[in-house]
């Protein structure tokens, strides 16, 4: 026993040391920093207790109206949640692709590779390319060029057609849908699809054989065998995507929109970036990051509470 204890120290030490310096230490420091007002360039930290949290989350009553002390935070939180609408869409596409690709067929590897490509390039390259594709002017942006052609097919021309072209990245109403389209494009064929492919391999073929004997059609087999059998995989992908989505959106906002127009694509993580590394208000940024941590912690708890049951049931 004692010899193993000594060996264990040797095996654990490098990792434990790094863990203490780069994970455990920073978490504790971040928690502490959230209690300080700290402007990195000019000031020394001054203790303010829970004031940062109050400034971030509290509502004041002004003439009988409730006004948020930091209305931006609530707007950006709503943005983050709205952009997470890409998750169900991406998952549906991933499932569809996996079902289609789950058979011996020619070109399977080519398809799989092509659908996986967005996962290989840096998000930066993807967002740069899509910024150009979503350009408003239809002689450059191929999305609007396509819509322009489509309008002509339906007989809409001239000023009417111009008015109908969405200003994808310049119009506050269109910026979020534009980002959702990009997110779905970038994530549909990646990890989720491969996880679904693995899940499909684990479904016993007898289920489908029995369904064939009962005369089930393709849709019924998908609805009553494939989807329920994939429930654990779906749940796993959903939870990881939600956790990722809550901290997401920074790169897209940084490259494509700068968080605009009118803050309509600023997410929590982009807000943290501007506060911490542009304004250098590291105390307030730490407070926002702790609130984000709390949100993710809640999502994980819900996962533990209900995920276990779901997995057993499926």
């Amino acid at each position, binding site marked *: 026993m004692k010899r193993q204890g000594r060996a264990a120290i040797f*095996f*654990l030490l*490098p990792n*434990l040391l790094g863990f203490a310096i780069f994970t455990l230490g920073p978490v504790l420091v971040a928690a502490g920093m959230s209690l300080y007002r700290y402007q990195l360039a000019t000031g020394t930290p001054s203790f303010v207790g829970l004031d940062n949290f109050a400034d971030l989350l509290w509502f004041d009553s002004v003439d009988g109206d409730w006004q948020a002390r930091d209305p931006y935070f609530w707007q950006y939180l709503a943005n983050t949640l709205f952009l997470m609408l890409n998750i169900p869409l991406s998952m549906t596409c991933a499932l569809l692709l996996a079902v289609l690709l789950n058979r011996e067929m020619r070109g399977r590897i080519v398809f799989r590779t092509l659908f996986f490509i967005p996962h*290989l390039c*840096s998000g930066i390259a993807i967002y*740069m390319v899509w910024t150009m594709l979503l350009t408003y002017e239809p002689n450059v942006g191929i999305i609007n060029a396509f819509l322009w052609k489509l309008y002509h097919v339906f007989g809409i021309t001239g000023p009417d057609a111009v008015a109908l072209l969405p200003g994808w990245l310049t119009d506050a109403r269109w910026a979020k849908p534009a980002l959702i389209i990009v997110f779905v494009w970038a994530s549909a064929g990646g990890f989720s699809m491969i996880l679904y492919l693995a899940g499909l391999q684990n479904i016993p073929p007898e289920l489908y054989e029995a369904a064939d004997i009962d005369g089930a059609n393709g849709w019924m087999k998908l609805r009553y065998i494939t989807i329920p059998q994939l429930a654990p995989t779906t749940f796993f992908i959903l939870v990881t995507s939600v956790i990722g989505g809550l901290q997401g959106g920074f790169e897209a906002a940084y490259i494509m929109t700068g968080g605009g127009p009118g803050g309509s694509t600023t997410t929590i993580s982009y807000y943290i970036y501007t506060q911490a*590394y542009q304004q250098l208000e*590291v105390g307030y940024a730490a407070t926002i990051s702790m609130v984000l941590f709390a949100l993710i912690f809640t999502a994980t708890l819900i996962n533990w509470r209900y995920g276990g049951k779901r997995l057993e049931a499926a």
Partner: protein
Amino acid sequence: MATVSSQTRWQIAVIYAVLLSLMCLMVVPLLWTILTSFKYNVDVTLGWIPPRWTFDNYTGVVEAFAFARYYVNSLFIASTVTAVQVSTSALAAYAFARLQFRGRDVIFLGYLATMMIPADVLMIPQFVLMKKIPDWLNVFSSTDFFSGFLFFGDQYIGHPVGLDSYFALIAPGCFSAYGTFMLRQFLLGVSREIEESAYIDGCSTWGVFWHVVLPLAKPALGALAIFTFLGNWRSFVWPLIMTDSDSMMVLPVGLAKLSDLYNNDYGLICAGSVLMLIPMIIVFVLCQRWFISGIQLGAVKG
């Protein structure tokens, strides 16, 4: 039987049609990017096929930017982080999976708990640390070594520590609770018989780890290595806030700078994107099997 096979053939046709149209959606942006990278900027609006083909954008990107340097930085940082992270994770995973010692489960729970901490939380104190380290260290040293610059031949290689240093770009990525967790789960699923017979033959703990466990864990190590490398190759925020000088930038940061400075030069931006993408596609095609089994391993065990 005849009806079954004709139905299957009809189904296969539909599946191919759907897959091909979805593939078009995937490929169109890539195709547009590649074609635009061969266009003069004045020709960008003139349809898809370049009216005059040119290689200028590629030479332009390489000349105007330290693109080769970005590449070297990205490769160097990603491979160093991968090597160190896989090693430290494997060592710790072995201790958690196989060795008996006091406090093992408590420490492991601590590791698990930190896996849900968002990167944003850790990054802020790390940023402050990297900004302050040179000042603190200079308190102890009379020479101004820690805020100095380093050169390798005529290549600027940044500060020793703090902002704009390889240390800052590499060190925080080298230790991963996720990697430790994944490898531990894998080892728990491996039979102990060979290890036990190795002990009986007089092998030391280290000998068992090196000669028995590591070879057995190869698939998991490969998967972790690929994930770590890919994650680092793509990482953006940390290198963005850590680098000031051009020679210390990694590929995504350099690319973002390119789009910032030349946001109207579509050909140039496309050429930069293509240069970034091509090596990754080659790597993926070469180790596709590792990728796929790695993702599945990570998910099933995670």
